[in-house]
């Protein structure tokens, strides 16, 4: 009679014994640090909407880069997102979606949550690979930190966040589409995940409470969508004409064929002699590299 409830429990592996903890940590790691980071990140990017040639946006970027223990924040993000993605992928493939036969809205959200999770993971990988690691995909790369990489340290003091982000987005409509799908996936996954996490943790245990918290999550979704919408609009609306002479010189140093890009956009570019003279002057006044 091995089926009696008093039978000895089967031996569980280390992972199985901590199943509950792992599941709860998976839920938590989507909210802190990754989810919270996304709010700040998109809010910062939304500053690109201001028609001030990127001054507000640059101010926010400089603020983030001036934060103490930035490396610690970055590492905690890596650990959080790596853990969340690894377990999430395993969990995704333990389910068998059936939205075709049971097309309830909650079931649709269940299916979307898994699809957007995978899309978000792909997007975040490319986003970081190009912006952070400066990988080159099919000739497209987004040299966000370009100003730090120039010989003679000329570019160090030149605010390049806005022109370089604009360059990355204006490179091709495919990039814009990729960003729209990618960020929309991230934002959906975060808002819907926050709603279901409240059920999983037992925060909202009645339909009324779930409905209320759902409204909060919907507002968060709308706000974040507005933030990234503003960011993409700002990057596309930016004109290279707004660049200062210093920005143009750094732009030409950083971007392959940067001079041609600017000329194609009808921007008046400084001559090579002028650019060299300014670099020498800058190096002299800042003591070189």
């Amino acid at each position, binding site marked *: 009679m091995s*089926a*009696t*409830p008093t039978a000895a429990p089967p031996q*569980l592996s280390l992972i*199985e014994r901590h*199943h*509950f*903890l792992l*599941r*709860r940590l998976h839920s938590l790691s989507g909210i802190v640090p990754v989810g919270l980071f996304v709010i700040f990140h998109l809010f910062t990017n939304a500053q690109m909407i201001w028609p001030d040639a990127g001054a507000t946006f640059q101010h926010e970027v400089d603020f983030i880069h001036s934060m103490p223990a930035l490396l610690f924040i970055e590492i905690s993000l890596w650990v959080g997102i790596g853990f969340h993605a690894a377990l999430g992928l395993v*969990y995704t493939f*333990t*389910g*068998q*979606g*059936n939205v*075709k*036969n*049971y097309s*309830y809205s*909650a*079931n649709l*959200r*269940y*299916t979307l*949550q898994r699809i957007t999770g995978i899309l978000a993971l792909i997007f975040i990988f490319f986003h970081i690979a190009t912006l952070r690691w400066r990988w080159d995909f099919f000739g497209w790369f987004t040299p966000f930190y370009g100003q730090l990489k120039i010989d003679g340290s000329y570019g160090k003091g030149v605010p390049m966040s806005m022109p370089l982000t604009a360059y990355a987005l204006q490179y091709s409509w495919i990039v814009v589409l990729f960003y729209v799908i990618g960020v929309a996936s991230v934002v959906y996954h975060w808002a819907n995940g926050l709603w*279901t996490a409240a*059920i*999983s*943790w*037992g*925060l*909202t*245990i*009645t*339909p009324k409470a*779930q409905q209320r918290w759902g409204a909060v999550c919907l507002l968060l979704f709308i706000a974040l969508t507005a933030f990234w919408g503003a960011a993409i609009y700002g990057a596309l609306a930016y004109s290279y004409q707004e660049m200062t002479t210093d920005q143009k010189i750094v732009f030409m140093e950083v971007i392959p064929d940067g001079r041609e890009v600017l000329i194609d956009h009808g921007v008046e570019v400084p001559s090579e002699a002028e650019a060299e003279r300014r670099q020498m002057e800058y190096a002299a006044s800042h003591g070189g590299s």
Partner: protein
Amino acid sequence: MIASSPPKTFILKIKRSLGEGKPSHWESFEVPIRPSMNIISALQYVAANPVTTDGKNVEPVVWDAGCLEEVCGACTMVINGHVRQSCSCLVAENLQDGNTITLEPMSKFPVVRDLWVDRQRMFDNLKKIHGWVPIDGTHDLGAGPTETQEEQEQRYAYSRCMTCGCCLEACPQFTKDNDFKGAQVFAQIEYFNSHATGKELAAERLDVIMEPGGITDCGNSQNCVKVCPKELPLLDAIASLGRKTTVHAVKRFFSGKK
């Protein structure tokens, strides 16, 4: 407005097999429509006249049924792609493409034959979660604690479960080859854990659903609560157990008991 005259017969398309793991195939039967006909009476007609639309004489279709009034759960099957009880499914309201109804056995339980499945996994799970109120002792334990009317009414909703399996059939997380327990036992844990005497085993029940296949494996598709024919508040049960297991885990951690 003049309604078009209702069809006199309809086609019952049935997925048939000789058992779990055996190849399955579809057979169609033409059945005359009688007033207020349900799926069970249509299946009874097929049993008496087991001739397919191709004119082939076949073995009668096997199905399971019991109460015929939607309280036992035995006749649960997938009708037109949607799980429900066949006794309470009226033919006239469910004709697709004008004259067809499709019947399949539930896909999440082993097929015994044709439309008959083995729902043993649910009953085994009820044993695992101690699905009872402990009242046995070596001496007279006396009268149990008094239950308020309100508590009884709250629990009544969960007592309506007939272990039919609809919630599990519609659940994307519950599959034949995994160990997910599903909404059916979660509701019964909530039921027994809110009983004044039944809650003596509350900690044991929570321990069971904190293991693999337990409450954390719920993927929040919330199909269970939509398809439940007895309208159990299954999502409330899942969320409530989410809270209780969270608290239980913290208590376990700091008490060092497990």
